[in-house]
C-alpha cells in the first residue's frame, strides 16, 4: 500500500497533546490509516459477536449443574472419598516444597511468587466449593508460605543440591501417599493406580511423562552424536522408529503387547503404568530431536576450549555443552511438553479415566444426557489453564536464564 504521509509512529513528531493520551495511542495503533481503521472495526465487531454468543450460551443455555455434581469425579476419578485427605496432603506438601525450593533457588518473594501463592486463594472464590474445600485451599496457601519462611532458617550450604533433595523427597512421599501401603483396613490402604483419574491422573501422567522422558531424551540426543557407531546407530533407530508411529498405536501396543515381552509369571503391570511407559518412550524421541538442535548450535570452539583446559568428554558435556544446548531449546522443549500434556488424553481410548475419559463417562451417564458442551468446555478450560501456566513459566525462565547470554 502506498501512503502519502508516513504513519506517525515517532512520538516526538506528534502534537504534545496526543503523545501520551489514550486517544493518541488509539490513533497511532488502531486508526493510523484507512486500512488499519477498517481492520480495527472488523476485528472489534467479530470479537463482540463471538463473545456475545459465548456469554449468552454460558449464562442462559448451559446447565452447569453437571459440574458440581461430578466435581470429585473430574478432579480425582474413582479415588475413594475417604482417602481424599491423602490427596490434600499431597497438595499441602507440594505447596511447602514449592515454597522451600523458591527460597533456595530464586531467593526472593517476587511477583511470580505472589501469583503462585494467590492461586489457591483465588480458587477459594469458586462458587460451588464447600467450606471444607475452601479451608483446605487456605491451608495450601499457608503451607507454601510456611515452606518459604522455614527455608530462610535452614542452615544450608549447597542451595541447589538441597533443593533437588527436597524435590526428590517430595516425589517419593507423594507416590507413597497416593499409592498407599499396608493392609486394606490399615490407616493408609493401597489405592490401585487404575482408580486414579480425572485431573489428578492427567497431571500425574504429564508430570512423570515429562520428567522421565527428559533424561532419556537427552541421553538419546548425546547417543546420536556419539563417536561409537553402535550407540549412534541404536539411538538413530530408536528415535526414527518412535517418531514414525503415532502415540495412540504405542499406547495400544503398551496395553496389549507389553505383557507378551515380559517373562511368564511376571506380575501384571498396571494399566496406567503401561500407558506411562508408552508416553515416556514416545516423548523421549521428540526430546532427543529437540535437544540435538541445541547441541548443533554449540560452536566447535566451545568443545575445543573445554578440551584444551583438560576437561574430559563427560565433564565438558555436563558443564559446557549441555547447559548451553538445553538453554537454547527451552522454548521448543516447553512447547513439546505442552503438547505431551494434551496428548495424554489419548489414554482415554485405551480405557484409562484421565480428564477426557472421565468426561466421556459423565456424558454417557443417563442422568446427564445432553451436557457434552458444558463438560467439554470445563475440560478445555482446565487444559488451557495448565498449558498456559507452563508457557508463562517458560517465558519467565527464559528471561531469568537470559542473563549474560552472548
Amino acid at each position: 500500500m502506498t501512503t502519502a504521509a508516513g504513519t506517525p509512529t515517532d512520538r516526538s513528531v506528534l502534537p504534545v497533546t496526543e503523545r501520551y493520551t489514550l486517544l493518541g495511542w488509539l490513533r497511532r495503533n488502531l486508526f493510523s490509516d484507512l486500512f488499519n481503521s477498517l481492520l480495527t472495526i472488523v476485528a472489534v465487531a467479530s470479537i463482540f459477536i463471538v463473545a456475545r454468543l459465548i456469554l449468552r450460551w454460558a449464562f442462559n443455555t448451559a446447565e452447569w449443574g453437571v459440574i458440581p455434581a461430578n466435581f470429585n469425579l473430574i478432579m480425582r476419578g474413582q479415588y475413594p472419598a475417604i482417602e481424599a485427605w491423602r490427596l490434600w496432603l499431597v497438595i499441602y506438601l507440594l505447596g511447602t516444597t514449592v515454597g522451600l525450593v523458591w527460597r533456595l533457588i530464586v531467593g526472593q518473594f517476587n511477583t511470580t511468587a505472589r501469583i503462585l501463592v494467590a492461586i489457591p486463594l483465588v480458587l477459594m472464590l469458586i462458587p460451588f466449593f464447600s467450606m471444607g474445600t475452601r479451608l483446605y485451599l487456605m491451608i495450601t496457601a499457608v503451607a507454601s508460605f510456611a515452606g518459604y519462611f522455614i527455608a530462610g532458617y535452614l542452615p544450608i550450604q549447597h542451595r541447589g543440591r538441597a533443593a533437588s533433595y527436597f524435590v526428590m523427597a517430595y516425589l517419593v512421599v507423594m507416590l507413597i501417599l497416593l499409592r498407599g501401603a499396608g493392609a486394606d483396613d490399615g490407616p493408609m490402604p493401597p489405592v490401585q493406580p487404575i482408580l486414579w483419574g480425572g485431573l489428578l491422573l492427567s497431571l500425574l501422567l504429564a508430570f512423570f511423562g515429562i520428567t522421565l522422558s527428559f533424561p532419556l531424551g537427552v541421553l538419546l540426543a548425546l547417543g546420536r552424536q556419539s563417536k561409537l557407531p553402535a550407540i549412534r546407530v541404536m539411538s538413530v533407530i530408536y528415535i526414527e522408529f518412535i517418531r514414525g508411529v503415532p502415540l495412540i498405536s504405542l499406547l495400544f501396543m503398551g496395553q496389549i503387547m507389553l505383557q507378551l515381552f515380559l517373562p511368564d509369571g511376571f506380575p501384571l503391570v498396571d494399566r496406567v503404568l503401561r500407558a506411562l511407559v508408552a508416553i515416556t518412550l514416545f516423548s523421549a524421541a521428540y526430546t532427543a530431536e529437540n535437544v540435538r538442535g541445541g547441541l548443533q548450535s554449540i560452536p566447535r570452539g566451545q568443545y575445543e576450549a573445554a578440551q584444551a583446559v583438560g576437561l574430559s568428554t563427560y565433564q565438558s558435556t555436563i558443564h559446557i555443552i549441555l547447559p548451553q544446548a538445553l538453554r537454547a531449546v527451552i522454548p521448543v522443549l516447553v512447547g513439546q511438553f505442552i503438547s505431551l500434556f494434551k496428548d495424554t488424553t489419548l489414554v482415554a481410548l485405551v480405557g484409562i479415566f484421565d480428564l477426557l475419559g472421565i468426561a466421556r463417562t459423565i456424558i454417557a451417564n443417563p442422568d446427564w444426557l445432553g451436557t457434552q458442551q458444558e463438560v467439554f468446555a470445563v475440560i478445555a478450560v482446565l487444559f488451557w489453564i495448565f498449558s498456559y501456566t507452563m508457557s508463562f513459566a517458560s517465558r519467565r525462565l527464559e528471561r531469568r536464564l537470559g542473563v549474560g547470554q552472548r
Partner: protein
Amino acid sequence: MSENASADEIIICQDVCKWFGDFQALKNCTLRVQAQEVVVIIGPSGSGKSTFIRCINRLEEHQAGDIIVDGIPLTRDVRNIEQIRSETGMVFQQFNLFPHLTVLENITLAPIQVRKMKKDEAMDTAMGLLNRVGIPEQADKYPGQLSGGQQQRVAIARSLAMSPKIMLFDEPTSALDPEMIKEVLDVMQELAETGMTMLVVTHEMGFAREVADRIVFMDGGEIMEVGTPEHFFTNAQHERTKLFLSQIL
C-alpha cells in the same frame, strides 16, 4: 625426563605430518623448544600454523612423526593426552570463553573439576590471576559483557589457572580492535618474562622482535626457516621468507 633429549627440551616435534583427507597440511615439521623459550610462528594464511600448534595438545591428530611434550609421548593413549593437555594452556583467536559462566566460573571450572581443587582455593587463585591480567573488577560479569581485549585476558587467565608449563597462542590478537591489541600483548610479554614456555602464532612483528627467542617461518605446511629475530629481520635466507616479511612489515 626423557633420556634421548637434553633435559630442558620441553617440546619435541620430529617429522610431524598431518593430512586432511588427501590434502597434506603439515610436511615433516621438526622443531625442538627449550623450557622457558618463547617461539613465534609466522607465515602466510593457510600455511599450517594453527594446525601445527593444535597438534601439540591433540586438538588435531597427527598421522606421522613424533610429538613429545615434557617427556610424555603424544599417542592415542588417553592418559597421555589428558596429562599433556593439563600441562598445556591454549589461547584461541576467538577467545572461546564459556558464555553461560561468569568470568570467575570460567577460570575456576577446570581447576575444580580436573585438579579437584577446593572451591575457595580455586577462587583465590582465579582472583590472583585476574589481578595479574588487570581486570579483577570483572570477576562476576559474563563474557558477553566484556570487550574483546578483556575477554582475551580472561581466556589467558583461564589457561593459567591450570598452572600449565606451556602456553600455546593461536593469533590471540587477530580478532581484536586495534586499540585493544596492546593490552593483550602486554599480558603476554609479562608472562614471557616470568619464564613461561610459549608458542605464539601471530602477525605482530613488534612482539616477535621484542619478546621472541626464536622465530619459525612456515609456508605450505613446511617449516621453512628457524632463527633469532635478528637473523630474520636482517638476513633471512629463503626467498619466500623475505617476500613474506616484505609484505607484512
